[in-house]
C-alpha cells in the first residue's frame, strides 16, 4: 500500500528518512455490535508502530467505538459484541479473543479520554496508579517512574513542587497532560486518544498536539479527532470512517492532498458534515 519514491514530508515539516512502517497491530474484518446495532462494519487496517494513526469522520460514524475495541472498554457494558480480530504484534495475540483477559489488554494499551478524568487523589498518586495496579510498591521505583512519566508528558516543571496536591487543582490542559502521564507511566505499547483536546483551549490544545508528535518515538498512537487540521498536523496515517465503515486509509499526506475516494475528498474539504 505504501510505496515511497521521494522523501516524504512528515507532519511538522521535518523530513525523515523513509523506513518502511512496521505493523504494531492488525485489525482484521472487525465488526462491533451494540445489541442489534452494528456500529462497525468489517474494518481492516494496520496500526503502524511508532507512528500516529488518526481516525476521522462525521459524528456517530463509530470512531470512538473503534478506538474502544483496542482496550476492550466495551466489555464493561452488557449487550456488546465483537466480531473479527485485532492482532497485536509481536506476539500475534488476538486481543478480542474471548479467552484473552481484558485487564491484560488494558495493561498493554493505555487510553486518554475526551474529558480530562484525573482521580480525586494527589498528582503523584494519579501517575503512580497504574504502577500500583501492577503491584509495584517500592517507593524509589514509584518516584522515578512518576517523574519520568511527568517529564514525558511535559508537565514535570509545572508540578514538581506540588506532587502531593489534589489533581483537581490543575488547569484543564494540565489535567489532560496528567492523564497522559498516568497512561505513560506504565509504558504502554499503544496509546489511544479519544478527542483529547476537544475540551481544551487553543493553547492547551497546541501543547497536547506537540506532546503527541513527540511521544511517537516511544509509543504507537491511535487518535480520534474532529479537527481536520489536527489530524493533518499530528498524524502519519489517517483512516476516514463513515457510518461504521472504513472509507479510506492511507498516508495522512495522501488523504489530505489527493484522496482516492470522492467521499473522503468531500469530507476533507468541508463539502460534507
Amino acid at each position, binding site marked *: 500500500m505504501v510505496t515511497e519514491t521521494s522523501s516524504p514530508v512528515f507532519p511538522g515539516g521535518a523530513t525523515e528518512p523513509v523506513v518502511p512502517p512496521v505493523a504494531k497491530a492488525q485489525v482484521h474484518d472487525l465488526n462491533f455490535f451494540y445489541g442489534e446495532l452494528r456500529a462497525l462494519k468489517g474494518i481492516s487496517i494496520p496500526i503502524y508502530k511508532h507512528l500516529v494513526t488518526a481516525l476521522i469522520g462525521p459524528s456517530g460514524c463509530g470512531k470512538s467505538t473503534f478506538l474502544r475495541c483496542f482496550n476492550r472498554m466495551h466489555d464493561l457494558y452488557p449487550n456488546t459484541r465483537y466480531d473479527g480480530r485485532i492482532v497485536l504484534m509481536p506476539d500475534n495475540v488476538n486481543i478480542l479473543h474471548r479467552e484473552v483477559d481484558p485487564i491484560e489488554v*488494558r495493561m498493554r494499551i493505555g487510553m486518554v479520554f475526551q474529558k480530562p478524568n484525573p*482521580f*480525586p487523589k494527589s498528582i503523584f498518586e494519579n501517575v503512580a496508579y497504574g504502577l500500583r495496579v501492577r503491584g509495584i510498591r517500592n517507593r524509589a521505583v514509584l518516584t522515578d517512574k512518576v517523574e519520568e512519566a511527568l517529564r514525558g508528558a511535559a508537565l514535570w516543571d509545572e508540578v514538581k513542587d506540588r506532587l502531593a496536591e489534589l489533581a483537581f487543582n490543575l488547569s484543564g490542559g494540565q489535567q489532560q497532560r496528567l492523564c497522559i502521564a498516568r497512561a505513560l507511566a506504565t509504558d504502554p505499547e499503544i496509546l489511544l486518544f479519544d478527542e483529547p483536546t476537544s475540551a481544551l483551549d487553543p493553547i492547551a490544545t497546541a501543547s497536547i498536539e506537540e506532546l503527541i508528535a513527540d511521544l511517537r518515538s516511544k509509543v504507537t498512537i491511535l487518535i480520534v479527532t474532529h479537527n481536520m487540521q489536527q489530524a493533518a498536523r499530528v498524524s502519519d496515517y489517517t483512516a476516514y470512517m463513515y457510518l461504521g465503515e472504513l472509507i479510506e486509509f492511507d498516508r495522512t499526506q495522501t488523504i489530505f492532498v489527493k484522496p482516492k475516494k470522492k467521499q473522503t475528498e468531500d469530507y476533507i474539504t468541508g463539502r460534507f458534515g
Partner: protein
Amino acid sequence: MNPGSMSSRTEVDQAHIRALVTSGKRKQLLFAIAGLTCTMIALLTLLAAFLQLLIDGLPRLSWDFLTNFPSRHATQAGILSAWVGSAMVMVVTMLAAVPVGVGAAVYLEEYAPRNWLTDLIEINVTNLAGVPSIVYGLLALGLFVYQFGFGESVLSAGLTLALLILPIIIVSTREALRTIPGNIREGAYAMGATRWQMVSNHLLPYSTGGILTGVILGMAEAIGQTAPIICIGALTFIAFLPDSPFGGSPPFINFSWLFSEFTVLPIQMYNWVSRPDKAFQLNAAAAGVILLAMTLLMNGLAIYIRYTVRKKIKW
C-alpha cells in the same frame, strides 16, 4: 440586543408586558407568604416542644444524674444504665449494619447483573425503609431472641436496630456510589484495574462522605427507637452495668457484655413518663434533653462530614 426591534414595540405592548410582570410578581409574593407561614407553623411547634423539654429537663441535669442508677426516689434516680446501654447497643448496631449495608450497596450497584431479581431486591430494599419499626421488633424477637438464642440482650437489640437502619445505609451508599462519574470509572478500568481494585481504590474512598452521612443518620434514627427494643424485652429498671468490654487480664477484651440484659435511654424515659409522680416526669425530660443532644450531635456531625467532603471533591 437589536435597538430597532425595541423602538418598534408599541406603547400598548409595553403596558401589557408591564401588567403581566406585576401580576406575576403579586402571585410570587402571595406564594412566598403562604410558604413562610407553613414553615413557621412547623418550626414554631417544634421549637415550643423543644423549649418545654429544656425548661423541664435542664434543672435536673447534673453529674449525678449521669452517674446514678435508676431509683425509687426521683431526685436520686439517674440514667447511668440507660446511656451505657444505649452506647453498647449502638456499637453493636454500627458494627453489624455498616459492613453489611455497604457490602450490599456495592454489590447491588457494581456487581449485580441487571435483571428481574435485582429489580425485585431493589424494590424491597427501598420499601424496607418504610416498614414500621415494631415489625422489626417482632421479627427480632422470633429470630435473634429465640431462634438464635441470643436472649433479651445487648446483642439482640443491636442486631435489631442494625436491620432497621440497613435500608438507610444501603440507599445512601448507593447514592454516593452513583455520584462518582462514569469517566472516573472508565479511567480506572483503562489503567488495568480489576473490579475489586476499582471498588477498594476508588469507589469506597470517594464515597466515604456519603456513606458516613448515611451511617450517622441511621444511628441517629436507631438511638431513638423504643418500640422494637421493648418488643425484644429490654428491661425498664436496671441497677447494674453490663460487664466491661475491656478486661484487666489477657486478652483484655471480652464479649460477655453482648449477652447482658440492658435498658436504653428512650425506654428509661418511657418508664419515667408513665409514672404519676411529677418529679419523675422531670427526670424523663432531662433524659430527653440528653437523647436529643446526642441526636443533634450526630446530625451535626453528618452535616459537617458532608460539607467538608463536598468541598474537597467536586466532580
